[in-house]
């Protein structure tokens, strides 16, 4: 559906935009708004193209312009398109109109993903988290970072729990097995080999 937004060139462009906006001192709310609008723009522009090739994606981003130019047009006097009405003060947080949370970043799919990744771990041990990760990656609202976080939550955390349980079981019950420098108390955590060299 909006696979194009996961295109590496698009993701890199949005990351550059975030970095430029952060460097320019834009507030978190404004950064989120700007990113959401640029993201929707890219989606609409690519949806209007007959086919999705790398040159087409690059062309859409070229027309958007360099991220520095977009951020510079945010109102610090360096007008990108219309410098009219630029107030001489630094851009304050918007007074009252824009909602702080910016775009709606949660819909039914995202709530289902979260439920599967949390409650689903217990109710549906394997299927739940896997389905949750699938839902997260199908989301058009979550960023790439959010999807990766969901994957960590859904797959790696239970995996670590299983490994920890196995380690505990091996050290407690199966003492004949000599595998491990893993202490029973800490499970999968690395052993505290830091010798206290205090004296």
């Amino acid at each position: 559906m909006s696979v194009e937004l996961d295109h590496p060139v698009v993701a890199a462009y949005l990351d550059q935009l975030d970095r430029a906006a952060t460097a320019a001192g834009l507030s978190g709310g404004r950064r989120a708004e700007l990113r959401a609008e640029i993201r929707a723009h890219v989606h609409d522009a690519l949806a209007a193209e007959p086919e999705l090739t790398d040159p087409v994606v690059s062309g859409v981003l070229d027309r958007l312009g360099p991220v520095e130019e977009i951020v510079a047009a945010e109102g610090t006097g360096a007008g990108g398109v219309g410098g009219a009405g630029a107030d001489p003060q630094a851009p304050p947080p918007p007074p009252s109109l824009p909602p702080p949370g910016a775009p709606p970043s949660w819909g039914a799919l995202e709530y289902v993903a979260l439920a599967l990744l949390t409650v689903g771990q217990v109710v549906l041990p394997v299927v739940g988290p896997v389905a949750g990760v699938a839902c997260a990656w199908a989301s058009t609202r979550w960023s790439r970072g959010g999807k990766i976080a969901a994957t960590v939550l859904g797959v790696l955390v239970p995996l670590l729990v299983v490994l920890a349980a196995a380690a505990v079981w091996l050290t407690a019950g199966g003492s004949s097995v000599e595998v491990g420098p893993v202490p029973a108390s800490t499970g999968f955590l690395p052993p505290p080999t830091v010798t206290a060299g205090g004296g």
Partner: protein
Amino acid sequence: MEPGGARNVITQLRRGVVEHCVLALLRDRPRYGFDLVRELSEAGGLLTSEGTIYPLLARLRRDGLVVTTWQESETGPPRRYYALTDDGRASVATFGAEWARFKDGVDRVLGGPVVAPTSPRAPERSAG
């Protein structure tokens, strides 16, 4: 005057008017960013970098000339729609009237002694 200077004037002019062109496009109905960009592009390249429309729209919002709402899209991420406020509508009307006068004045001057590019001003000094 060198051609570069004329181009620079047009660039500045474009920057000055695009804001009101955006407001004008919102007179009939609310629109989202890409929709506005498409219209402005079809109107003869009023935007050089499409992405800069979003800071411009944010400025219009801060000035109370537009209000915004986020709406779900059937095909992709949610879109932010911009709608004209009463102040925005008044601003477009004022600009429209001023622009008409400005344009008429410039047209009158430019349209007066229009000379073909190939015809230099001949110094017809008959005196010898």
